[in-house]
């Protein structure tokens, strides 16, 4: 690859990786704002009244990503969060980390919640038991969640008082379809209702993704056209096409790795609990593979340069 080709392809790849990372960060932040404005519930959440044991047992069958919020007795806003797979949940945090799958006896608390310091670790005490504080709720210390506590304690799954909130995509339809509509209510106290953000945001993500995808595909095709003559000359010189292309793909991959570094470094250096280097790497890998796939497709589809033209 000539320096010029590397500059063009690398520059474009860098640009679209930055945009893709920005979109992924946007998505996380937007979800966190939505949760913060609605007591941590998504807009699809439902409230179910009835026997807590029965409801929790039913809701657990709706899939590992189903979040079940059980309000625990007492004056404080202490909720027990039951979820088997918490990876899709972008809790608004300003410190620490979210719950891990299967984590027990852990707490995420708001800034106004008193905690006990023991051996450099913070603990929250509830009903005679202590929970290690692993994160701080809310986008900042001043937040609608400053007085909220979230526990992860399967042992208290059935201790709920009052309605239980079941939250997942299509929660209402899924729950009613399986268990009937008795005691099930849609919730509607979310701040997002005040504006059309719930309509605009997914559209924005879709359009942004379309721009990035079109850009990545274009970059791959451009790389194919820039390398076309070189491939052909090498072929005429007796090299087999596949190894030549494989070599170019390797070089493209190297360029993509270099182009991916800035966004990844920025994500790691930001130190924001909401921005993870891993998720940035994930979207960068997607962009890189779009570039490579479109490069290979274009390289194969292109008519070879007519000899002597």
């Amino acid at each position: 690859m000539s320096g010029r080709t590397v500059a063009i392809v690398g520059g474009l790849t860098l640009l679209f990786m930055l945009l893709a990372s920005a979109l992924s960060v946007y998505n996380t932040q937007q979800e966190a704002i939505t949760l913060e404005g609605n007591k941590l519930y998504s807009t699809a959440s439902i409230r179910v009244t009835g026997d807590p044991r029965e409801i929790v047992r039913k809701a657990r069958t709706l899939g590992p990503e189903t979040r079940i919020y059980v309000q625990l007795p007492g004056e404080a806003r202490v909720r027990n969060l039951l979820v088997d797979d918490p990876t899709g949940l972008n809790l608004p945090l300003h410190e620490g980390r979210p719950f891990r799958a299967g984590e027990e006896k852990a707490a995420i608390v708001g800034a106004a919640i008193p905690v006990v310091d023991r051996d450099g670790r913070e603990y929250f005490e509830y009903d005679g038991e202590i929970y290690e504080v692993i994160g701080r709720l809310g986008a900042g210390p001043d937040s609608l969640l400053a007085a909220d506590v979230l526990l992860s304690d399967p042992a208290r799954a059935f201790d709920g008082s009052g309605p239980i909130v079941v939250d997942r995509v299509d929660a209402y339809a899924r729950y009613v379809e399986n268990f009937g509509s008795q005691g099930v209510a849609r919730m509607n106290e979310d701040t997002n209702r005040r504006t059309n953000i719930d309509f605009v945001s997914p559209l924005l993500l879709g359009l942004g993704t379309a721009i990035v995808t079109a850009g990545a595909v274009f970059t791959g095709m451009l790389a194919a056209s820039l390398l076309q003559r070189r491939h052909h000359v090498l072929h005429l010189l007796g090299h087999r096409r596949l190894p030549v292309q494989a070599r170019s793909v390797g070089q493209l991959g190297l360029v993509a790795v270099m182009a991916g570094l800035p966004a990844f470094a920025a994500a790691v250096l930001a130190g924001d609990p909401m921005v993870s280097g891993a998720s940035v790497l994930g979207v960068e890998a997607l962009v890189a593979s779009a570039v490579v796939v479109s490069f290979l497709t274009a390289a194969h589809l292109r008519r070879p340069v007519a000899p002597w033209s």
Partner: protein
Amino acid sequence: MELVFDLRRNWLILTCKALAWALLAVTVFNIASFAQSTDTAINRSFSAEAETNMYQLVDRLADPEDFYEFRQSRTNLEQLGAFYDELNEADEFDLLSVFDQPVPVRDFRGNETFDAGYGTEGSVGGPYTDEVGRRVQDVKAVQLNQKAFDFYRLAVSEGTPPDWGDVDYSDGAVPVLLGSSYAGVYEVGDVIDGNFYTLPMRMQVTGILEEEASLYYQGEMNFYLDHHLLIPYPPSAEQFAAQDQVFYGILYFAMVNADIAVPRGLSTDQVLGELAEASDHSGFEHYAVANLPDYLLQFSLVKSIIQDNLALVQGIGVLLCLGVLVASGFANAQLLRRRQAKALAFWRLGYSRGAIRRMLLLTALVQYAAAAAGTAVGLSLLPQASPAGLWSAAGVLVLLVSVDAAHESHLLRRLIDHTSGRMGT
């Protein structure tokens, strides 16, 4: 003819550019429509006038026996009414009287989402037969005074707000408003046969509230009224007939348990002074007042959530704009590289710079038109109408076109300058 050659040779780059531009213009339209919607939400519920200190006024007759005793005396109730009237007429602050007593409605037409128990700790009660043998259902309702209606900027999307001065329960009829979800269930002009604190009431629907109408109630900023029936309080708590003493006894207590919105310049002592004065004048003294710092806290935090969303959306919009601009720049460089031989051939044939530029800009025009057409198609697929959004989308296209035309001309000029310099002409 050159146009056709150029389009055939460079269609891929041109299509990608036009597509990215159209996508960006549609994105900008969306962002502008969201900015507008944010603006509306802020003006409606988070205006500077609503940024007040909030106090809570309650009666101190918590014991049911005291409460019952008190209401047996007409004098007591008249004092209570006079106390309410003086506070309601005060100019220094707004007495926001709101209460959510459900109302049994006869032969109710709506579904369970309007039921008083829906979504609460209780459960949906559904229709039942009342003491006099009628099929009724308890539905969500909110009673409020005009000060509260105005303070929370409630407005109707259909019909008219009630004529507050004419609200009078004594003839058994009252104008009511319905939350936006009632559209299609009841219509303006319908009469709902209800029962309000034991008093049969013909409820004449005068209007339907705007969507997502909300107010601050019992510590909740996001108390939406879409599924509620709104009953206006009478303008004053003065007169009542002897046989309705039970009804008015309960009503006046509901009215006096209110929030007080106090401009931030007024101190707590001044508020307490006003209340003491009203108490002296009226003779009612079983009240207590508490500060509600939670209101201002929620006010600013909910407002900032809305604004954070806007900042986030605008931020990603700016990034996408920059990205598309930079990508277009790359595309232009690549385009010119592919046209280099042709442009220089024309130059050596004696074509002027202007003529060559026009030739190349002609293809660019086709691409601009394609981007505009793509944008039009994209916008026609969107449901929301937003004049500001249309202007913004047009604005971003004009920006892209001018930057792009300037950039292409610049690249071409540089190429020709470079070549002519090298050729020594």
